[in-house]
């Protein structure tokens, strides 16, 4: 067999070249002068010259815009040039390469049968200053290849093709009964099981009771099932809490039960259909439909392979929504990155530069969301040095389904059906990987844990599942996520039992050991319980949409998990032990966050007020995210009523998204919003939780959501909970969540936690992320034609401040742009806030509000500036406003615009509530307050400061 190498190059300027050069420059590689990017396609086979030419011109290139050349490997060496380095990059074996698969398929389709296998890669021609050629800093190559998924070589790379190794039924027996405590811990570490001694002892006791040791399949199954990721043991732990402020010691038996679920139970909202029990939370939409919502994180995978990590994060949460039989209709993404201007030399070893993490993560979100056809309508991007080694990628998805069609009721005898993608080594042990601290070796060791998604396969799953649901062809459904089949089949069969055959599982390539098949986290798979008589009908739907269906066994009634390979049992576990046998963790927490006092006298700002406002608008947390938002398709499915960007030039940040789903009757819509604030989290986790829940609810109400119909999700991203202070802050945040839910009567319907977001640097120092809690809100608006956007509408309209205004500087963004930090507590949430939101909602619903915008990072001045940018109008604030009023941060407040003719009715709606007239909208394009006047053009320029320097 011969390997042919095709090189494809744009005839005109390839915009990728400039992009690479800019990234290199931004990271300080200034000796790089030019980059040329050439795509490589490797084809193995026996082909005639005529066939090679057809492949090149008909399949592999666009003759109008691209030139193509081909050679046999080994390619003749290119003549050496003193100033040039040639770098070739190709995927590592086992990494999904869907383009290569399409080449093989399409070649046969055009009648070229001699193509056996294919692979893809890139060639980069890097031109340097001649003088530095001999001493090229090899780290520049990291721009072009991520060693986790790619290999690189100078000059010419040998491609790797999927290997057709012999099938393997190899089973290892683990002699657990004979192991000492130390040996148990060593085993846990060696197999990257992330189990502690008590858990390992419980496994040993089970083995002794059963009178036998475990197979590797069984041990790995238990490790996945008992992982932090799958079972949330920290959130279910028995915690002894020592409060340094009150000197009291108490115990908390399960954070979930005590703080999150208890709030939902207490609120007992009749419109909540499912909370905490299913793949996603579900609430009523109207008489006909229900809507579901789930948010997850994909932090560790995104740290080692940003594109694949974010890509599969989006894919995973979409599957969660499919797991409640809903059609995915909107995505949200909240992303936290390290500061973009950190010098490469200051990063710990093994950490990818935050600029590359940002571009990779955004590209991953874009690729999956756009290709699967779900609009990305809401999100946030935050920067903090604490996220440099541990970026956070929160992915949320909303789904819609007709009522009464989703149920979880598998029957003994139902077939265990896998739908979707094939199984490979991708993503092995992802559930335990995500439960560990990362270090410099993590990227390398985790190679197998990284998955690249295939959104087109998952699009097929959507098409099949909504149709199968409508025909009631299945009795239960769940997604295959962390832990792979072991977790999906294991959980679904927990009340029953099952007997499955691993040899039936379709593989991407042969050679996988049974435990690898069972644990693989290959993407785009769903597991269904299907009555035998319905399998044929399901198969027909699958055939129409190119989705593979695999029958791997049956549910049983004996409450045992039986897994076979070629008929021979390789696992036979008692479900009671597997699902209930994990010992409750006992943890210690210390509550010790220092409470600061309000500053009595404020340091006098030494710059003009306008400078601070412009600095705030240019701060990457506040500055325009349009460059990212426009990469996401936010229009597909035709439901976007309030879009991510608002205003005359569609460049101002909306408070929340409003969606009118296709196929629903009337004018009802869905509202999506979020609240997140690590600056508060660093200082006071309890108040942070209240503040971000308040912000999520307030954002939703600002566009028109009914405050009495808002459900929320919690997503905690924290450091190592084994450190008592870290766990203490987590408890405080959870307590804040409960109090917020009760205050706003907004039940939690789902939640997730991602712990151990820490990086152990080679200097032995641990770097933890700032305590980060994302609250996502899912609301309902009765009539989308009443929705309000944040852009100013008309001059001479009046501007009011509504809500209890209590600005402080603790955790404020003013502190981030000022020369000196003003130490104060972070904002509190006032009891009056829910009443303010109810009145605001009434005012919106009565058509009194022309625009509304919440006060958040940067305070009142930033909110006013953003409204001006949105409307391309000015604002004159005549009420006296101090620096504290302008830049201090508060919860519970919004700026609203009303027509003067409605001022009396507006006053009636807000009678007895804190409200204050601040000024009016003016045609003159300036923002005026306290003897300061700032041209709108300056606000726009500052707000459009690029997120990535030098780009």
């Amino acid at each position, binding site marked *: 067999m011969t390997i042919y190498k095709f090189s494809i190059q744009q005839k005109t300027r390839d915009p990728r070249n400039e992009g690479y050069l800019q990234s290199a420059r931004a990271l300080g590689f200034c000796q790089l002068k030019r980059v040329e990017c050439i795509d490589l396609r490797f084809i193995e086979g026996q082909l005639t010259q005529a066939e090679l030419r057809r492949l090149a011109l008909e399949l*592999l290139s666009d003759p*109008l815009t691209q030139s193509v050349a081909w050679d046999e490997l080994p390619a003749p060496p290119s003549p050496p040039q003193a100033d040039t380095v040639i770098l070739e990059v190709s995927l590592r074996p086992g990494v999904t390469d869907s383009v290569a698969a399409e080449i093989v398929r399409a070649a046969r*389709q055009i009648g070229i049968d001699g193509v056996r296998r294919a692979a893809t890669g890139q060639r980069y021609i890097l031109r340097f200053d001649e003088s530095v050629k001999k001493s090229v800093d090899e780290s520049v190559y990291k721009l072009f290849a991520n060693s986790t998924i790619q290999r690189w070589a100078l000059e010419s790379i040998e491609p790797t093709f999927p290997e057709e190794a012999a099938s393997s039924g190899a089973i290892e027996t683990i002699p657990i009964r004979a192991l000492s405590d130390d040996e148990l811990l060593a085993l846990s570490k060696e197999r990257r099981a992330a189990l502690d001694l008590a858990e390992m002892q419980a496994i040993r006791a089970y083995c002794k009771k059963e009178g036998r040791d475990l197979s590797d399949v069984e041990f790995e199954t238990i490790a996945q099932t008992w992982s932090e990721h799958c079972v949330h043991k920290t959130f279910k732990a028995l915690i002894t809490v020592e409060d340094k402020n009150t000197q009291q010691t108490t115990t908390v038996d399960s954070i979930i039960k005590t703080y999150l679920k208890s709030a939902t139970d207490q609120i007992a909202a009749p419109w909540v259909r499912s909370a905490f029990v299913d793949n996603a939370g579900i609430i009523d939409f109207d008489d006909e439909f229900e809507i579901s919502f789930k948010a997850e994180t994909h932090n560790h995978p995104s740290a080692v392979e940003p594109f694949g990590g974010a890509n599969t994060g989006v894919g995973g949460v979409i599957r969660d929504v499919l797991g409640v039989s809903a059609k995915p209709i909107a995505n949200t993404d909240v992303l936290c990155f390290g500061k973009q201007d950190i010098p490469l030399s200051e990063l710990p070893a093994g950490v990818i530069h935050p600029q590359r993490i940002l571009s990779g993560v955004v590209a991953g979100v874009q690729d999956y969301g756009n*290709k699967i*056809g779900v609009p990305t309508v809401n999100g946030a991007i935050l920067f903090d040095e604490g996220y440099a080694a541990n970026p956070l990628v929160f992915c949320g998805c909303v789904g819609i389904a007709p009522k009464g069609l989703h149920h979880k009721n598998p029957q003994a005898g139902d077939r265990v059906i896998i739908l979707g993608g094939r199984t490979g080594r991708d993503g092995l042990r992802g559930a335990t990987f995500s439960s560990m601290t990362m270090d410099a070796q993590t990227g390398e060791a985790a190679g197998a844990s990284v998955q690249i998604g295939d959104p087109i396969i998952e699009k097929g799953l959507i098409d099949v599942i909504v149709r199968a649901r409508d025909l009631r062809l299945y009795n239960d459904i769940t997604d295959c996520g962390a832990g792979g089949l072991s977790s999906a089949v294991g959980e679904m069969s927990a009340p029953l039992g099952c007997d499955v055959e691993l040899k039936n599982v379709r593989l991407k390539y042969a050679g996988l050991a049974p435990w690898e098949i069972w644990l693989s986290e290959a993407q785009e798979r769903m597991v269904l319980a299907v009555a035998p008589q319905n399998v044929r009908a399901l198969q027909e739907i699958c055939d*129409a949409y190119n989705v593979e269906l695999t029958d791997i066994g049956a549910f049983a009634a004996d409450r045992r998990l039986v897994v076979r390979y070629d008929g021979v049992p390789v696992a036979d576990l008692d479900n009671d032990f597997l699902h209930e046998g994990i010992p409750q963790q006992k943890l210690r927490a210390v509550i010790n966050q220092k409470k600061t006092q309000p500053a009595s006298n404020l340091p006098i700002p030494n710059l003009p007020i306008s400078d601070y406002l412009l600095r705030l608008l240019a701060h990457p947390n506040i500055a325009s995210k349009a460059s990212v938002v426009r990469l996401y*398709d936010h229009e597909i499915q*035709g439901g976007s*009523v309030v879009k991510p960007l608002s205003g005359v030039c569609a460049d101002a940040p909306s408070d929340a998204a409003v969606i009118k789903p296709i196929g629903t009757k009337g004018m009802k819509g869905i509202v999506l919003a979020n609240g997140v604030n690590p600056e508060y989290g660093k200082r006071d986790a309890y108040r942070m939780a209240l503040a971000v829940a308040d912000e999520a609810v307030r954002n939703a109400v600002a566009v028109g959501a009914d405050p009495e119909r808002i459900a929320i999700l919690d997503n905690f991203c924290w450091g190592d909970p084994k450190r008592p202070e870290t766990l203490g802050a987590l408890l405080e945040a959870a307590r804040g969540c409960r109090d917020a839910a009760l205050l706003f009567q907004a039940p939690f319907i789902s939640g997730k936690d991602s712990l151990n977001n820490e990086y152990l640097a080679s200097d032995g120092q641990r770097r933890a992320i700032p305590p980060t809690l994302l609250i996502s809100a899912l609301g309902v608006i009765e009539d989308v034609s009443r929705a309000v956007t944040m*852009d100013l509408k008309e001059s001479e309209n009046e501007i009011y401040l509504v809500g209890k205004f209590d600005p402080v500087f603790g955790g404020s963004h003013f502190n981030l742009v000022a020369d000196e930090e003003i130490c104060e507590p972070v904002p509190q949430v006032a009891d009056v806030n829910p009443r303010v939101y109810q009145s605001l909602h009434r005012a919106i619903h009565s058509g009194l509000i022309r625009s509304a915008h919440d006060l958040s990072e940067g305070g009142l001045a930033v909110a006013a500036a953003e409204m001006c940018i949105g409307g391309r109008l000015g604002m004159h604030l005549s009420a006296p406003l101090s620096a504290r009023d302008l830049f201090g941060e508060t919860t519970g407040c919004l700026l609203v615009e009303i027509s003067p003719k409605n001022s009396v009715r507006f006053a009636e709606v807000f009678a007895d509530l804190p409200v204050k007239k601040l000024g009016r909208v003016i045609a003159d394009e300036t923002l005026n307050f306290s003897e300061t006047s700032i041209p709108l053009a300056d606000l726009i320029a500052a707000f459009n400061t690029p997120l990535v320097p030098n780009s």
Partner: protein
Amino acid sequence: MKPQALILLAYGSNRDYDVAEALTLAGAEPRVISHNELRENKKRLADYQMLVLPGGFSYADALGAGKLFALDLNSYFNEELRAFVEAGKPVVGVCNGFQALVKADILPAVESANQATLTFNERGRFECRWVTLKPVSQTCLWTRGLENLIECPIAHGEGNFQINDAALAARLQSQNQIALTYVRADGSPADGEYPVNPNGSTLDIAGICNPQGNVLGLMPHPENHIRFYQHPQWTRGVKRGSGLPLFENGVKYASQL
């Protein structure tokens, strides 16, 4: 009877619901039919009065947007499709559907192949933003008689329409094959200026038709502007530029067949 529209779902099409909604509002009866159903003769193209190739990412854009979708059209449906076109029935390819029509040489339908293509946006990235379109061609049954500008979103990375010589440009103009162009809000030409022309297309071309005028391909998504509340400035009282008349034109034509 309402005209039946076949929306052909390729492997990776994803704006099928959107265009089905537009066609329903325009008075047609749309049916989303998967490629496999058509290939296995479970459905027949000839039974329909309209054909829609919807937006999406067929085959994940592997080997170039629309390329493998086009290969399918030519390998599996060549005769039926050409007969449908020759019968003068309305065909529209939106976004990925347009890319497939061009790469299958169904558009612009000039004598020799490979004279036109849709390539990477000039800025090298996918973009989602609203654009303004001017219906130009009076030969095209879809744009004929449309007096108002259309405002709707684009969402693509490979929508840059390019041709290989100036003679073809002249021909597209003289044969009224330029169906839609990117224009400013006042209707004046974009003259290539970003973002009015969002992708660098030659002659600001957003959509073209075949010389007969029954096959339209366009990059933007008029199917995503069929209700007032989809317009990005509806909260400012702006009500203009609906994409619905374009579909109504096609449906009206089909119902007279």
